[in-house]
């Protein structure tokens, strides 16, 4: 009888513990899904954006990588400004974050007058974000206008600029796991590895379930592209390492 009493007393307790596990893990899964959804969502494109939509999503493999990145950045900045002016705050912030990511990569890959324009753009976008952090959307609009002006010159200059040099083989492994961005700044996956020194290629993992909790890949597919189709951001241990894929990749089995 004592054994039966023990079992009947323990069963509800096990049930509660199981419920706690399920509830806790379900909450974490919900949070992870929502975060991935927000991170990988398409960057909203404002109807009033002055740039043609095709400029932000280049598909031509012949387009210079830096020009594609700059066009995407200009579209994001324009969309952010238009959305902010139209009162669509969430669209505006998504575009601003995308622009911020691209501007960081662009600044790392330019030199001379073009770098100056990129520095001005990045500073203006930083200032716009800071303005929103302090509840000042009017200042953010002014800063985004400044960013757009700096980008007007940059767009012209990238037509004649040469694409940045590929990273040397010695640092290739430092890009393993780098966050992969599309030319419009949205997160589309991560870099698996770079190999084949004779004809450098980049192995990419593309999908919305990439980098969940920072290290889990759920679904998606792998693909391989030539090294020169990717613009590489700053390598760092703390903080995001970005790589911008400036073409639409073909899907490979993976």
């Amino acid at each position, binding site marked *: 009888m004592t054994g039966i009493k023990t079992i009947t007393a323990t069963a509800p*307790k096990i049930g*509660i*513990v199981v*419920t*706690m*596990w399920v*509830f*806790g*893990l379900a*909450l*974490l899964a*919900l*949070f*992870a899904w*929502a*975060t991935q*959804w*927000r*991170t990988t*969502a398409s960057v*909203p494109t404002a109807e009033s954006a002055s740039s043609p939509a095709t400029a932000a999503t280049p598909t031509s493999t012949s387009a210079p990588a830096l020009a594609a990145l700059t066009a995407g950045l200009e579209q994001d900045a324009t969309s952010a400004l238009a959305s902010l002016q139209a*009162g*669509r*705050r*969430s*669209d505006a*912030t*998504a575009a*601003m*974050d995308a622009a*911020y990511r691209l501007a960081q990569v662009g600044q790392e890959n330019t030199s001379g007058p073009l770098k100056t324009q990129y520095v001005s753009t990045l500073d203006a976008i930083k200032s716009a*974000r*800071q303005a*929103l*952090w*302090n*509840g000042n*959307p009017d200042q953010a609009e002014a800063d985004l206008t400044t960013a757009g002006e700096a980008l007007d010159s940059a767009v012209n200059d990238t037509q004649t600029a040469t694409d940045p040099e590929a990273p040397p083989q010695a640092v290739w492994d430092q890009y393993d796991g780098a*966050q992969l961005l599309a030319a419009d700044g949205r997160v589309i996956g991560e870099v698996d590895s770079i190999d084949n020194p004779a004809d450098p290629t980049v192995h990419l993992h593309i999908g919305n379930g990439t*980098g969940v*909790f*920072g*290290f889990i890949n759920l679904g998606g597919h792998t693909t391989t592209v030539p090294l020169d189709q990717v613009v590489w951001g700053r390598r760092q241990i*703390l*903080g*995001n390492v970005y790589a911008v894929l400036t073409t639409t990749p073909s899907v490979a089995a993976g």
Partner: protein
Amino acid sequence: MIELGWLAFLAEAWFVIPFYAIGVLGALWVVWDAYHVNTPLKTAMRWAWPIIVLFFGPVGLALYFLTARAPGIGSAEDDEKMERHNAYVRANWFRQTTGAVIHCVGGDGIGIITAMILARIAQVSFWQEWWFEYLAGYLFGTLIFQYKSMTMMTDSWPRAMWMAFRGEWFSMLAVMAGMGLVMGVVTPLTITAQPYPWTYGFWGFAALGLFIGFLLTYPMNYLLIKVGYKHGHGMDMEH
């Protein structure tokens, strides 16, 4: 994209400054009250309530009065205070559970916010920040608040430590899910991602994150009390 612009007030001075002014003054008053008037509060609760009031402002003060401070305790004699306190805080599941949630979120909260400040200054990535906050919140919550509370339930410190880790484990899952939702979704869609600690938005959304964590961990703490892994308010424990 969902529209969260209506939450932009959390980054505006007119809201953040008075909210935290109430929080700071309220927290100072709660410290005084816990040591001079509402003396039956357990030590861990005396530490946790000021943190909660600091970050939850008027909501924190309301919770303190509704769940932790028996009416008329100021005029009660010393030996009568404990009796009144226990009768009040054990009267229903709401006060019991709130007690458990308070010393969870209070402990976690101070660790999470400290980690968040450091992470934003270092400009780490979102997931690096989230894991750092998880670790800091878990350690603060377990080693300081939960452990202190569990020492009242057992004389064995290893057992108290085990009980603290066990209780905190489940609470923290829910707290960091709530905090993460605000950090990873709500804040970026309102004011862009990862604001710096010297901006209003940081503090406004930090408070919101802790509050969502508080709400999500509430049912978890109810279950923790049910299963006997934690207790709520009250000085002497049955477990």
